[in-house]
């Protein structure tokens, strides 16, 4: 027996199998149905655009690791997730070089410059999308007609602008829009998978979607239509549940979801943009630290702090 072989480490000595990389892997699996749907709806270009975004996001992440002398972090898969989610927020017609700018902004500016995984205050994919939307407004609203498999892409308006589309078409994704957001069915399958696998808590998505429906009816709009058209479901399931930029307690997550829903509706109904999901989530990302502060958990059996301080003072005397 050689005691020098023995490892001494603090307890616990066993750990759950669930690592950051596994969590991100589950998210990628959950994104897969929507990916398949987008390829069916918009053709092969969608296939390549998503792969391109994921690849460039990983490349940017690795370059940052090298330049900033950080540990290689592409193995945690978070960059790939960001790339795919950003791609889902782009029109299928977008030139690849613009998409590369988008992933650059998402990974380098919104994430790595703030310290990498876990340190960014806003969802990188949302930041990437908003920067592209403001910088390339024409390219970013060049919506393709679904199922039109020709070299020449014919563009159309999104259902949010036209305001007339059948529920079933919206549900299955037979409408124009960002490549990942159109098929509500596929997104919901992904969402249910994440909840079942206990990757996300359903608090934020339900609060978000519920608020959109309720608020729309309250101001005389069609709530179901507002839920199915545009990016509410994509945002609620995959972006309002991003761990890093949303509140850490379930109570906070409900507040977050309600806030996202209200801002989304206000922008849609009275703002100059047709879509408000990205801004809704971005603004709520910014108030997340304050929501966290207000929703701190109370430890079980804890006494108020003042009393303890008095006791300490009494002891000192």
């Amino acid at each position, binding site marked *: *027996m*050689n*005691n020098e*072989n*023995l*490892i*001494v*480490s*603090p*307890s*616990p*000595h*066993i*750990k*759950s199998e*669930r*690592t*950051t*990389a*596994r*969590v991100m*892997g589950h998210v990628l699996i959950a994104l897969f149905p929507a990916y398949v749907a987008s390829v069916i709806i918009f053709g092969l270009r969608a296939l390549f655009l998503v792969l391109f975004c994921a690849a460039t996001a990983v490349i940017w992440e690795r370059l940052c690791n090298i330049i900033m002398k950080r540990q290689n*972090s592409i*193995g*945690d*898969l*978070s960059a790939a997730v960001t790339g795919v989610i950003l791609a889902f927020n782009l029109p299928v017609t977008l030139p690849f070089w613009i998409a590369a700018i988008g992933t650059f902004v998402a990974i380098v500016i919104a994430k790595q410059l703030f*310290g*990498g*995984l*876990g*340190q960014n205050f806003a969802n990188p994919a949302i930041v990437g999308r908003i920067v592209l939307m403001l910088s390339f407004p024409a390219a970013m609203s060049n919506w393709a007609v679904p199922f039109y498999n020709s070299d020449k892409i014919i563009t159309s308006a999104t259902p949010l602008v036209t305001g007339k589309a059948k529920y079933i078409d919206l549900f299955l994704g037979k409408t124009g829009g960002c490549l990942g957001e159109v098929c509500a069915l596929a997104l919901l399958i992904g969402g249910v998978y994440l909840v079942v696998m206990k990757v996300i*808590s359903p608090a934020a998505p339900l609060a978000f979607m519920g608020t959109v429906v309720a608020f729309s009816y309250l101001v005389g709009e069609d709530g179901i239509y507002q839920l199915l058209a545009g990016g509410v479901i994509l945002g609620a399931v995959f972006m309002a549940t991003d*761990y*890093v930029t*949303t509140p*850490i*307690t*379930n109570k906070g997550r409900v507040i977050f979801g309600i806030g996202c829903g209200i801002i989304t509706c206000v922008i849609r109904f009275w703002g100059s943009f047709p879509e408000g999901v990205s801004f809704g989530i971005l603004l709520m990302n910014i108030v997340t630290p304050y929501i966290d502060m207000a929703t*701190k*958990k*109370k*430890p*079980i*059996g*804890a*006494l108020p*702090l003042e009393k*303890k301080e008095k006791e300490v003072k009494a002891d000192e005397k």
Partner: protein
Amino acid sequence: MRLNGIHIPHRKGTQYFETQTFPVPERVKISMSQHMGAPCTPLVKKGDTVKVGQKIGESEAFMSCPVHSSVSGEVVDVSDMLLANGKTCKAVEIACDGQQTMSEEIEPPVVTDKQSLVKAVRESGCCGLGGAGFPTHIKLNYDESKVDIDSLVINAAECEPYITSDFREMMENTQDIIEGIKTLCKILEIENVYIGIEDNKPQAIEKLTKQTENEDSIHVVKLKSSYPQGAEKVIAFSTTGRIIKEGNLPSDHGIIVMNVSTVAFINRYIKTGVPLISRRLTIDGDAVNKPCNVKALIGTSVKDLLEFAETDFDKAQKIIAGGPMMGMCLYDADTPLSKTNNAFLAFKEKTYAKKSLLYKGQTNCIRCGRCIGACPLGLMPTELEKAYDRRDKDALNKMKINLCMNCGSCSFVCPARRNLAEKNQLAKGFAFSK
């Protein structure tokens, strides 16, 4: 309301292995610090002859109980010894003569009232056998004018993986447990007894339920298998529904919590007068070829115990005293068995260190909130870690770092593999420092 808990693997492979008696070793080393509280002063010196059950260590301190010799033989050395927790204390080394001659001091105590019970339990050298090792007589010596004890909670949850020593106690010594409970109830005038057992031990639940059928005051409570069900505060809540407040003892809320093996020992002591000189423990782990439950004398070397269980010493890289969630690593296999050790586990090299496509090391906190959902006491481990990293004493106190009991649930669930429990312990020390 319910307290948070986590699912951990049970791995109770030794549960059907009947307890074997470990032979008397050639030499024992009995440390003077066997439990929480003050260490004892040795009463014997080199060259003395000692007998089984003879008192060899005693202390005047409040939080302490005596230490007895587990063998008969000659004291060969009284020296300083480094404990697994880093503290130093005296240890008495005895060369056994193999006769196991019983000491004349041994005689069944006369227990008639609370005072004599407390005295007897103290003299028996009894401390909590579940792992933490709180001297038992202090639990019993509550102030009757201030608190009214109405419930006795028998902790048989055994929520740590691998360990089955309490389960074997329940299967093999059921009568001792029930009689011990009855004695305590009679003397302390306790109305209700709750035996909390996790539902992964259905045989124990069945056996105890059957044998307490005619006892109206004894309730066998089936608890959900969720870690840390056996923590004092958690089991007190799961059985009685009472929350033990910050800084309070269970007795402040009318409860005494006692481990199932402890109560069985008290009964045996009252019957025979043989003090705490041996205990049952589990030996398991992936480096152990013949996992088993053994009854061994206090002071037996862990190395001998592991050899008995055919441990592969060349491959063993981690030897843990206790369970894998809260147990302490040993730096030397030649450490003696103490009263509080309910298991020794030997593990090979960590399997997750293998190369893998996915990154399995530590990452930044991804704020998933799993640690918050895991903490049984509702603390926020990730926030505590951040507060400790910026050395913010006020924030740590505000977030009640003092409540952390180091159950390790937060570290277990963390996907970023952050050592949250370790940080909490460091933070506790920091927050209490002036």
